[in-house]
């Protein structure tokens, strides 16, 4: 009896396997936990030897909330969507949010997500106070920054491989209003973009930007830079922002939709929609943090073959022109992407496999084609040459030798993981591919 005989990440690269939906995680089988499946690649997919993942999304109860201190403890399957629905109207928000609210707390911890405020606030793991884990031997254990610290640092960013995350405790933050004051700016090329992004980071708690990675030559990397902060009460309306109704992308699109011409048209339109050089004003937090959440199942745009996201971080030591050189590798290969997001990152966190490091993060959505592997290889070789790394939560195509060369912290992670799970009960398709786990 199976619900479905295949599972995929957000990139829709399917593998054989099935998801078990459980309300009570304390009786979960020994298998990888998976939240809302928003990691793009194979992070939340089962290995072939145990083709089972436990879907945690029904384990979504709030355990307690301290309304004075803002300390929240909840079951790992609670979604950020649900959390925002409950707490944003009351003036509380998570210290760090990724670019979609369709993620679970457990997933946020496992990927050690970062957001537009990384340069100020770091990753989600740096804010956690406690995690409750069930380990390979069945014992349930609490860990935190000051308790079983090794296990904690391996679990944050550990992609679910150290044990099953049952509960998550973190402080929410008071926000002055549920509105964002945003300034956005059209930028002519990649060098100007990088300079302005660094400048913006000094004055704004949240920054992000989009660039047109198809334009070449003088306009290479032209884009739109966005800066934001929570609006103060005298700036914002008293009304709570109304969340726009969702639309659902209705079917798997034919590949034609993703033709180079279409991507070019999209990029051209997106750039010139921002006609004035600079715009300022109030925006609602859903549009600001989660611009793509309005279209449910938008990954179907990428058709039968799906997509991958390539996200890497280029360290400051690579020089100010690293982003330009990266784009050159991409455009030489003819890589086309609807979305290219560049964001500056603050210092690396102590979590063993945490993605960001001081530098610049670049993320590209790429339609999967015959040459995708070759494109990812070329980008990885560049990233490796400048001392950067890729983000596991997005990855499906990186070769293990590239990953090992980029990730000097891997051995330490594997050592701690091995201590708590010597039999490797918790494996993913990704850990088999990249960490050398037996399949």
């Amino acid at each position, binding site marked *: *009896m199976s*619900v479905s005989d295949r599972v995929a990440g957000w990139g829709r690269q399917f593998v054989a396997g099935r998801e078990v939906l459980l*309300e009570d995680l304390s009786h979960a089988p020994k298998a990888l936990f998976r939240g809302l499946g928003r990691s793009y690649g194979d992070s939340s997919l089962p290995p072939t030897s145990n083709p089972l993942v436990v879907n945690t999304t*029904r384990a979504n*109860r*709030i*355990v307690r909330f301290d309304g004075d201190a803002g300390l929240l403890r909840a079951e790992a399957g609670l979604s950020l969507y649900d959390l925002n629905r409950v707490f944003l109207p009351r003036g509380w928000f998570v210290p760090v949010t990724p670019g979609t609210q369709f993620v679970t707390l457990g997933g946020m911890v496992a990927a050690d997500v970062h957001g537009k405020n990384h340069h100020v606030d770091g990753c989600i793991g740096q804010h956690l106070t406690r995690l409750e884990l069930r380990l390979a031997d069945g014992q349930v254990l609490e860990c935190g920054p000051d308790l079983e610290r090794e296990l904690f640092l391996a679990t944050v960013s550990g992609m679910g491989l150290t044990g099953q995350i049952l509960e998550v405790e973190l402080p929410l933050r008071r926000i002055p209003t549920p509105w964002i004051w945003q300034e956005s700016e059209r930028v002519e090329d990649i060098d100007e973009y990088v300079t302005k992004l660094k400048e913006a980071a000094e004055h704004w708690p949240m920054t992000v930007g989009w660039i047109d990675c198809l334009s070449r030559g003088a306009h290479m990397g032209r884009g739109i830079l966005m800066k934001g902060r929570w609006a103060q009460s005298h700036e914002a309306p008293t009304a709570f922002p109304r969340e726009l109704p969702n639309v659902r992308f209705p079917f798997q699109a034919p590949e034609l939709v993703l033709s180079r011409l279409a991507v070019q048209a999209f990029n051209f339109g997106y750039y010139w929609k921002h006609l004035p050089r600079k715009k300022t004003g109030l925006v609602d937090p859903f549009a600001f943090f989660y611009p793509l959440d309005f279209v449910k199942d938008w990954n179907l745009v990428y058709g039968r073959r799906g997509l991958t996201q390539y996200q890497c971080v280029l360290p400051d030591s690579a020089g100010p022109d690293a982003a330009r050189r990266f784009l050159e590798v991409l455009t030489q290969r003819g890589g086309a992407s609807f979305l290219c997001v560049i964001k500056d990152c603050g210092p690396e966190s102590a979590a063993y496999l945490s993605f960001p490091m001081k530098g610049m993060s670049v993320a590209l959505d790429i339609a999967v084609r015959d040459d995708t592997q070759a494109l990812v290889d070329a980008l990885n070789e560049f990233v490796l040459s400048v001392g950067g790394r890729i983000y596991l939560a997005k990855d499906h195509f990186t070769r293990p030798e590239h990953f090992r060369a980029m990730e000097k912290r891997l051995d330490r992670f594997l050592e701690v993981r091995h201590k708590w799970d010597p039999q490797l009960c918790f494996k993913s398709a990704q850990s088999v591919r990249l960490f050398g786990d037996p399949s």
Partner: protein
Amino acid sequence: MSAGKKVVVLGATKGMGRAIARRLVERGDSVALLGRDAEDLERSSADLRARGAPGVKLSTAWCDLEQPSSFRPALDGAETALGGLDVVVVTAAMFGTQEQLESDPAFAQKVLTVDFANTVVFCEEARKKLLGRGGGTLCVFSSVAGDRARKPVVMYGAAKAGLSAYLEGLDLKFRSQGLVTVCVKPGFVKTGMTEGLQEPPFAGEPDEVAQVVIEGIDRGTRVVYAPPIWRAVMTAVRALPRFVMRRVGF
């Protein structure tokens, strides 16, 4: 009817009951949670406290559909804790696949007893209590499985058909006295109860079902299909001649 009601939910810790209880407390209704696992009840109560509007009352009481002696004390306790009673919702039930029920007569008897006889007995207690207070709403989860005999749900469907008939009878006899009966017929909903089953088209999420059910309670709708598409699906299935039903597998 407006918010601020006093509602008992039997089965409030899981699946659709959980989703309904959340929507109720968010809009300001007070809820008494009935269930058979004290720790689970406490966890759900804490969840609802964190989500609920200010001033919402919450209480828990032990109640097990396998033990009819637990029914009256649980309802009495809930009424006292809430300071009244306007609505009783029953989402609790047991499920077994036709194969499980055929191969294990003791299990079959348990499912049939819980889903029909004991649910009716619980409803009788609730009915008396609500009528004694001058009226109220009794909202009970039956199933689309009770609408037409089908091969995969021969026994479960029979129990639910009986329950649907009972609820219709209550409506006929007691509506004039102020008892509003809402019979909910969920189609396939992705919850712990349906875990492991092949997912059919139009499978619903607990939260969308909860929204439809609460609208049904507010309006006093006699029969609520949730998700609503199942009304059309079951109309079509009921229209199929028996020789067709013998051949199809659903």
